[in-house]
Every structure is written in structure tokens, then in C-alpha cells.
């Protein structure tokens, strides 16, 4: 039997909110004709990356019982997503999206430093070790 980690994952929730806003901004960049970048591969790229970011942050915020290795992998992939989207936004000159990525990076840091760990893998291992002894 596992127990969910205690406390609110403020970082994950902030990242989720940022991802949602970013997705809206990316959609606007993609479909708002006349902005100089609409319907280009660059905007499709950020649309995809922010969609993935939203899904990832959803998992991070809601699926608190996932194994620690998966949490770590997801956190790492989200960092790559944030950095990649930030670079893409910079090159697309999509300033608001770039600002969102800045906020997202802060949220990511909060998650890594301050959010309660899921701890699922450790507890499971401990239970098995206890059973074995």
C-alpha cells in the first residue's frame, strides 16, 4: 500500500497554469494571421511543445503517486520543453510566450526545490525490504 505525499505541490500547479496560458498564446501565434509568424513551422512547433508541457505539468500536478524515477524523468523533460520553447519563442519574437517560459522556469525550480516528493518508489522498496527481513 502506498500513501500520497503530503502538502501542496505549488510549483507543479504554477507550472500547470503557466502551461495553459502558454498553449493559448502559442495557439494565438499560430492562427492569428498578420503577426508575421502564423501558420509557420515555428509556431506549430511551439503549439506542440506547449501542448506537451500542459500534459506533463498535468501529470506532475495531479498524478502524485507516480514512481519517483518517472517523476524525475518527467521533471527533466519539462525542463527541456521549457528551455526549447523559450528559445523558439525568442526566435519567433513571441515576447509573451517567452515571458511565460520565464515564469514556467521559476515554477519548475519551485517544484524541484520545494514541492513534496512523491516518494512512491522509496516506500515501495522499503516495504519489500521490510517484508524480506
Amino acid at each position, binding site marked *: 500500500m502506498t500513501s500520497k505525499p503530503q502538502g501542496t505541490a505549488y510549483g507543479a500547479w504554477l507550472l500547470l497554469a503557466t502551461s495553459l496560458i502558454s498553449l493559448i498564446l502559442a495557439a494565438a501565434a499560430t492562427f492569428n494571421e*498578420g503577426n508575421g509568424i502564423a501558420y509557420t513551422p515555428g509556431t506549430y512547433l511551439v503549439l506542440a511543445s506547449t501542448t506537451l508541457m500542459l500534459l506533463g505539468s498535468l501529470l506532475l500536478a495531479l498524478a502524485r503517486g507516480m514512481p519517483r524515477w518517472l517523476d524525475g524523468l518527467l521533471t527533466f523533460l519539462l525542463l527541456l520543453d521549457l528551455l526549447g520553447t523559450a*528559445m523558439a519563442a525568442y*526566435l519567433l519574437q513571441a515576447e509573451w510566450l517567452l515571458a511565460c517560459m520565464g515564469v514556467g522556469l521559476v515554477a519548475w525550480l519551485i517544484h524541484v526545490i520545494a514541492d513534496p516528493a512523491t516518494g512512491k518508489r522509496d516506500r515501495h522498496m522499503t516495504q519489500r525490504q521490510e517484508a524480506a527481513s
Partner: protein
Amino acid sequence: MTRQDVIAIFASLLLSGCIGYAQAQEDTSTDEEGGQPQGITETQDDESEQDASADEAQADDTEDSSVTPTGPGGSVDTGPAGEAPSGDGETSLPRPGADAWMESPDTWATFNGDLRAQKYSPADQITPENVGELEQAWEYHTGDVSDGSDDVPMSVWSATPLFVNDTLYLGTPFYRIIALDPGSGEEKWTFDPEARLEALTQPNMKNRGVAYWQADEPREGEACQKMVYIGTMDAKLYGVDADTGERCADFGNDGMVDVDQWNTVNDKWPLSLLQPPTVYNDTLFLGWAGKDWTDAVAPPGTVFALDARTGERRWTFHALPEEVVDRTGTANVWASMSLDPETGLLYIPISSPSPNYYGGDRTEELPLATSVTALNAETGEVVWSWQLVHHDIWDYDTVAPPTLVDIEKDGERVPALVQPSKQGFLFVLNRETGEPIYPIEEREVPASDVEGEEAAPTQPFVDVPEPVIPDEWPGISRLADMVGLGECSRKAEGLRYEGRFTPPSLEGTLAYPPTTGGSQWGGGAVDPESGVFVINSNSVVQIYRLIPRDEFEQLEQSGETGGYYAQGDTAYGFQLETFLNWAGMPCWKPPYGTLAAYDLTTGERLWNEPFGQVQKHGFYMPESWGSVTIGAPVITRSGLIFIGASMDSRVRALDLKSGEVLWKHLVDAPAVSMPAVYTYEGKQYVTFAVGGNSILLPKVSDQVVAFALPD
């Protein structure tokens, strides 16, 4: 590693095709910008048959013609409306002075703003201090646009809007004329010649606008006292009433002159009229565009002078001697011209002869080819000529009109012209005599190592003003080389490069600048009061490779025709390749485009800044890389430069003194045209035709957008 390097690496990995795409597109361009058209599906025979009846309907004036030699190798063929030149070398210049209607400070009545191609407006309402407040006044869409996805080839629109007769006139890439209210953009009338929308000579539907003429004293209520003209790709010139858009019945055959009736030598394709005529003294001066690289023998270069009212031919200037036209052709005038209204001298930028990259079958001197030549506008006689490239085997067409301006030298006012060039030199000549104001030095250049070719032993070089691009190619881009795992370096080692004018070779020659220039058809702008000259330029590296005919045929059979050009049946075919790595990144160092200002009184370059931004897949590259540009700057008296031209679909205002960008605005596509600056009802407008050009981006538009200060 700097922040910019990091950005550049990331950006380049993501956007590796950015310049590559643009250059690949250049490969399919034409002699308009230095490339080769593709997709010509209609044969000249078909064209001739279709036009036969029209030709018959037109008066054949050849019976009344007389041919007189003029200048070194040229000749003038005088039509029924013309006056035969004396032929004794003495020129009688026409009456001085510009037509009054084109001298108003409020108008933009010609392609270059005025006959002198100064691209200068005395308007000073918009200043460096308030240009930041500039806002869109109105927008209009012509509807004449094609992305090439249907039957109509892609559109390329580089029209300068004309403001004259209280109306803004536009020519579209579908060869319609549109008249707009200059203050609101509301449509007044349109004229549709129902032209053939086929890539007869150019790969795209191209147009650079319309021309305007009016009688010295227009008679009230009488039609066609004011006229607007537009040419088509199939060599038709239409003249319509400037107030109504109705055809002018007295102009040619019911408002149309078929210029192809004079296309009688090597008539492999029609004489495409993409550049609007130059208008002066009730005369239209008309060059034409064709297609290079496919043929060795092509229509020889001509300039026509037509009566503005009737379209009757006054004279035809021939740039090539008759005895060589069975082996060569072109040396035509496809860019705009300039004219000194005080002296009546017409200045024509003459392009290179065909075939463009192998001259073994045209080894005799062709002095008027790749030259700037002054003609007597009245008779077509050559007054002087200066050849800018001897035995041109680089496709260094004289590409832009010379800018005419008086400059102060040693306390004296000197009538000068500034001739930009693809090779990057700015030739500053006395426009009355053709003598250099700044030295032009003949220097030894590398010999050709290709059997049959006889490259000229010397070429003209200019040190002052400093060339618009460096003497030496920029060198290998570390970034591109790194991404290409050393591909750029390895490729460069196998190429021949001995500086400017290294001849095309079998192993491949690194060409800098290549056929793209250097400078392009827009040319420069000048502030006649301060003598400051501004010009945009490109820094591009390409590889020229000649291919023996038997091997070239094999390549064609294997389907490898992309970037390969036949050059007729000469001993060598030709391959043009932009110097890129596997990922499509330019192998040479940026910047790829700059904007520079020169003090013509000293020849000193005042500033030279990367201009615009490369954009690919929506991503903008660093500003320090600049952008390849197509278009031209305009200068205002208040010390501003207005220019579109860049890949990033922005139009900008810059400070003439420093080159600093003071204002920019996003438009629908690259504004590959020059803006019109005019004052209407007390308000200054800056109006751009925004059409795009596949050389820069596969992005097209039909937008006309005017900017003004808020009320």
C-alpha cells in the same frame, strides 16, 4: 561562447534551411535578379502564331526605318516617329527641363521618384523625432496574388506606387492597373488587360508597376490627355486614360502596342515588359526582360523610344553589333533607367551578353555590354559609355539605374552619377562626359583555365567609395562548418578562388559576389542637399561550375537538372550552387545583407550596418546576421530612410545620420519594392506595395499599405 553564439547554434540547428532555401530559390530566378527561369511551357512558335494577327494589325514601321551606327558597337534604328541621328558623332540634345508635372515636391510621379533616380522626397513632416508615432493610415488588397499552388505561377510584386494627378496608381503582377484615393486607399477605377498569366520568360508573375504621362497643357474634357501605362510578360504595352482607366484608342492598336513586333532577331521568347517605361518629353523609353542561361543565342538587347500619345516608335537602340548576334544576345536593359532632364541624356544600365558564364563563342569586344551608357534621348545615339565588366562571364548585369546628383569636388559643383553594380563597386562618373570622378583602375585578374575561354586580362576596380561588400569573401562560418562536420572547409579547398573576377571553372569557382550581387535592381538613394548616398546590398557566396557538354547531357539524362543550365549548345553547360552545408546553412560568415551610407563629396563610407533579419520557418535570426534584400531605400529631407526589402516582412525607418532603426512595422510579406513618399492634402504618406519574392521567402501578398502620422 557568447549569448549570441548559443542562440545562433540553436537557431541554426532548428532552421538550417533558412538561407539555403532562399538561395535555392535564387537558382530558379531569372535575369531579373540574376537567375534562371524554369517552367517555360510554351514555345515561341505558339506565341508567334497567336500573336500573328495582332502583329499584322499593327503598323509595320520597318519600311520607314533607317539604321545608324552609334557608339562602340551599337546602332540606332529610327522609326517613323523619330528623327534620324546625324551619325557624325555630334549630338544635338533635346530641349532642357523636366516635364512640370513630375517636378512637384508633393508627388511620387515615376518609378524612382524622379527622373534622376534619386529616390528622394522633399517631404519633411515625418522626422526622426516623430517617426516613432507613425501608424497605418490605410490598407488595400489588390486580389492579384498567387502562391503558385494553382495554374497561375507565383506572384512577385515589386511595384513602386505612383502618386500623381491626385491619384495613387499601381500595376499588379497580373498586369492590372489600379487607381486609388491616396488619402483613404479607396478604389477609383481598375483596368484589366486580361493578360496571359503564364511564365513565358520569368518563372513568376512579375511586375514593377506603371508609368504616367500627361500632356504639357491637358485639354479639359478630352480623354487621354493623361495616361497610365503597363507592360506585360508577353510584350504588350497598354495605355489607358489616367482619370477613367479606359483604353486610349490612339495609343497603338486600341490602347495596346505589341512590342514583340520588333522582336525580329533570335526571337526565342517575348520581350517581357516588367519594368515600367521611363517617361520624358512625350516619349516612353522602354527596355525589356528575358531569360538567361537557357540559350546561348537570344534576342539582342534593345531600348525602344515610343511616342507617348500614339505608341509609334521613334527609335530603337541596339547594344550589340549585328555581326555577333548569331552567337550571342541579351545585353538588354531590364532595370529602370535615369534621365537628366537638363541635358536630355538617358542613362541605361546594360546587362551582360549571353551565354552568361562562357564567352568562348563571343570573344570579340562588346563594349556596350555590362555598361552604363548615356544616350541622347531625342535620337538614341550613344553620347558616352563606360563598360563595368569586360567580357562578362559572371552574369554581372548592370543592374540598377545610375543615380544622378551634383556633388561638390574641390569647391566646384560636378554633375555626377553613381552607378551601383552586382560586383559591389560604386562607379562615380561625370554624367556629362562619362569621366570618372573617383578613380577606376584597370587591374589584372585571373585567367581562365577552361579550354576555349578567353577571360579579359584586366577588369575595372574602384576603391573609393569603398565597395558595398568586402574585397575578399567572408571566409568559412565556424558554425556552419561545425554543423557540417567540416563539410564547408573541405568543399572550399576544392574550389578555385583568386579574388574578384575569378573565372568559372571545371572544378568549381567560389564566386563572391555572385550573380545575386552585391547591389541589386533597386539601386541607391541620395540626399541631393548633403550628397549622402544610401544603398542596400547582399553578401552571398555561390559556386560556378562549367560542365563539358557531353557530361552535361549525361547529367540531364540522369535527371540532375536542378541547378544545371544548358547555355544553349555551347561547349559547356553550367551549374550554379549556393555554398551551403548539408543542412542548408550558409558556409560563409554573416552578415548576409547590409545598408550603407556614403558621403559622395569625399567618397567616405559613413556607416555600414547589417540590415533586416533572416526569417525561416517563422524564426528570426540574429540582427547581426542581416538579411538578403530586394528593394530600395528612399530618403526624405528630414533625414529619414524608408525601406522594406528584408526577409522578415518588416518595413523600417532609419536615421540617415547613423543608420539606427527608428521605426519598424510588420507587413504581410517582404516588401520587395521601394516605397512612395508623397504629400496629399497636407499630410505626408509613406506607401509600400507588399508583394513578396520567392527568392527571399515563399510568402506572397497583394497588400498596399500607407503610413502617416496620427491626426
